[in-house]
């Protein structure tokens, strides 16, 4: 029976192990919750980047390049712009 007697030392060891368990589970939960918040509040870029494809809308703009409407736009056939006289072929 003496072998089964629990020493005070075992109680200390258990307190350490349980403490570490709680800390690790808590940390994992925290990182998960933080990830959820970061993804859902990170703006469009975080959500649009899901498919690992290059998306021109997400690329940063080049320095010094002005983006302005074309002087000679191309319109799809049948659209109001094509009816108004814009060229239909590129």
């Amino acid at each position, binding site marked *: 029976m003496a072998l089964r007697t629990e020493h005070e030392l075992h109680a*200390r060891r258990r307190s350490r192990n349980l*403490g570490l368990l709680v800390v690790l589970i808590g940390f994992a939960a*925290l990182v998960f919750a*933080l990830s959820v918040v*970061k993804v859902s509040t990170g703006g469009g870029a975080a959500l649009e980047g899901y498919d690992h494809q290059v998306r021109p809308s997400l690329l940063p703009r080049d320095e010094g390049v002005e983006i302005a409407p074309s002087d000679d736009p191309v319109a799809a056939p049948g659209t109001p712009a094509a009816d108004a006289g814009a060229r239909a072929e590129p």
Partner: protein
Amino acid sequence: MTTYQAQGEAEFGDYVALLKPRVMSLVVFTAFVGLVVAPGGMHPLVAFCAVLFIAIGGGASGALNMWYDADIDAVMRRTRARPIPAGRVSGAEALGLGLALSGLSVMMLGLAANWFAAGFLAFTIFFYAVVYTMWLKRSTPQNIVIGGAAGAFPPMIGWACATGGISLESLLMFALIFFWTPPHFWALALFMKEDYHEAGVPMLTVTHGRDVTRRHIFAYTLVLAPFAIWLGLTPVGGPVYLGVAVALNALFIWRGWQVMRRSDAQSNADGHRAEKSFFKLSLYYLFAHFAALLVQHWVAA
């Protein structure tokens, strides 16, 4: 009880004690206030994580401090029961815990908030563990004056988490704690003199005498007051904060004056009553200022 009980079979609480939970509570509170009163909202969970990792970073520097100062702690009565001098945790364990938690807290603060705040936290840990603990504490009676900066950084880190930078308001919150620290600790040293003597830590009371320390305490209450009031005139201040600040600074200066006017004979005769009550007041002083900032923020909102 038994011979092998002392062989470093620590319980969980001993590791928590390494992080200096009482110092941590001050860090949590001031960092929280710095974060909340800063302009620009944060998601509550992100704010919670930021304060938590600032606290863990503070705790890590506490563990590094206990690792390095185990020899001093073993001599001083107030610190003799800490885990390392008591033999429950080994020095190497404390060092490992301190380094690991430092790295973890800085990394997680960077991911949760921003990398400016994370760099600031890393600097604070370095400042407390290396500049204060390893260098200044044992070499100069100005140790707590400069070392107090480490305790004054948390509200600035909290502010940096929300804004990504530094501003006048966050510098004034720093000044509030920075100039508060010396009178706070010197009052403690006035009624715990024997301890620092035995450990050979060059406290002002040991190197320049107790009368000089009394004059320094009063002088710092005078330096502190303008910064406390100035904070009330910035965008984070207002009538609530200013009312608290004016009343408390007047009281603090008055009590500092009383401490300065006493001789050691008077002090010994009544068991250091004025010094102990000044020390207690200093705790309320700091808590009330930051609580007032918080209330002011909610009133204005």
